[in-house]
């Protein structure tokens, strides 16, 4: 079939782990936006959800760091974090090795992606799944972009990764939903955790919903680090969704800085033509 849904969301661990410390109104509105996205995914009737995230040294380390990786297993496990810390129960998550293998084979025409037959999900994938597939009843295809350990893949390649994913999805009989999961500006796991550059975020989101490739790939890593913090490198996950929905426009369903969650919490979707 093809790509039947595409969107982006935040994945910060505080969203679940420190839920009780947030402003209740902002938190509940975020949760409602996640639920709206869950419903939209459900309405699209996908056979699988591909989630492109930026993991945090849960599986991929600096001894052998892929720029891009896609999971290729029939099941995964997560969260890797302490259950009480993240407030998400550890469990097995269904995958689809056959679909993964076919997707990866197509993506490899354009991107030298690594594959992983074993993958422990961290908050980068588990927080979105907690809201978007709360019954864990749909196959998940995890993908990772290295946003932690430089040198990082250039932004234009993250966009190309999305285009390659789209071409691959278009060849599959299955219906696939694509989620990019990451932050815009944020300084997580530093004493500045909770600092958010709202103006920078809103400018980025404006470029994102217009799917303005050239404007989105124009940020240098030095500019992103200065204006968006080290967490800002995760815009690569958004760019992959942009590449997968080239020509489409989007909508921001929720954006609100929630400092105790350490990120400008975001839910946005692209309207696939």
């Amino acid at each position, binding site marked *: 079939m093809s790509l039947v849904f595409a969107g982006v969301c935040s994945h910060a661990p505080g969203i679940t782990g420190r839920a009780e410390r947030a402003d209740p109104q902002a938190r509940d509105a975020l949760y409602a936006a996640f639920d709206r996205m869950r419903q939209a995914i459900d309405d699209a009737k996908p056979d699988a959800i591909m989630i492109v995230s930026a993991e945090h040294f849960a599986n991929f380390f600096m001894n052998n760091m892929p720029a891009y990786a896609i999971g290729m297993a029939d099941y995964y496990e997560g969260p890797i*974090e302490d259950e009480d810390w993240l407030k998400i129960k550890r469990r097995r998550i269904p995958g689809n090795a056959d679909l993964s293998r076919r997707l990866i084979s197509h993506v490899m025409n354009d991107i030298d992606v690594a594959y992983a037959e074993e993958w422990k999900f961290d908050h980068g994938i588990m927080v979105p799944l907690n809201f978007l597939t709360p019954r864990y009843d749909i196959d998940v295809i995890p993908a990772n972009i290295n946003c*932690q350990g430089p040198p990082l893949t250039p932004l234009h390649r993250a966009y190309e990764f999305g285009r390659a994913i789209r071409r691959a999805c278009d060849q599959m009989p299955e219906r696939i939903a694509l989620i990019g999961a990451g932050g815009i500006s944020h300084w997580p796991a530093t*004493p*500045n*955790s909770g*600092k958010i550059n709202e103006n920078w975020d809103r400018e980025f989101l404006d470029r994102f919903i217009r799917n303005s490739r050239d404007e989105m790939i124009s940020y240098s890593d030095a500019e992103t680090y200065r204006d968006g913090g080290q967490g800002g490198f995760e815009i690569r996950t958004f760019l992959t969704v942009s590449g997968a929905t080239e020509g489409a426009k989007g909508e921001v369903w929720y954006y609100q800085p929630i*400092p105790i969650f*350490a990120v400008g919490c975001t839910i946005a979707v692209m309207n696939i033509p």
Partner: protein
Amino acid sequence: MSLYYVQKLLFQLNRDPALQKQFQEDSGAVLQEYDLTEEERLALTKPDVGELYIMGVNGQLLMHFAAFQGYNWDQYIKAMKDALIVHGNVKSGLYASLDGGAGGAV
């Protein structure tokens, strides 16, 4: 500095409950397996999350090591802020502080 091996240890600790148990029972035996300086060994043994932060340990690795060592969220942020006052800013990596940690949620 052998920051890479400090981080490799934390990477492996975060993934492996059996190694966590071993570390809790005899951290010295676990640390022997890694190429560490005496300063790094001490910071890991105490543990001194603030000093590890200043050394440049990746924040995502350190965040979970702190939780594993019993730091709650506010204690973890405070340990880093206190270390900034004592040692100055982070020596390496991407997780340096801005303005002494100002503007955060804690």
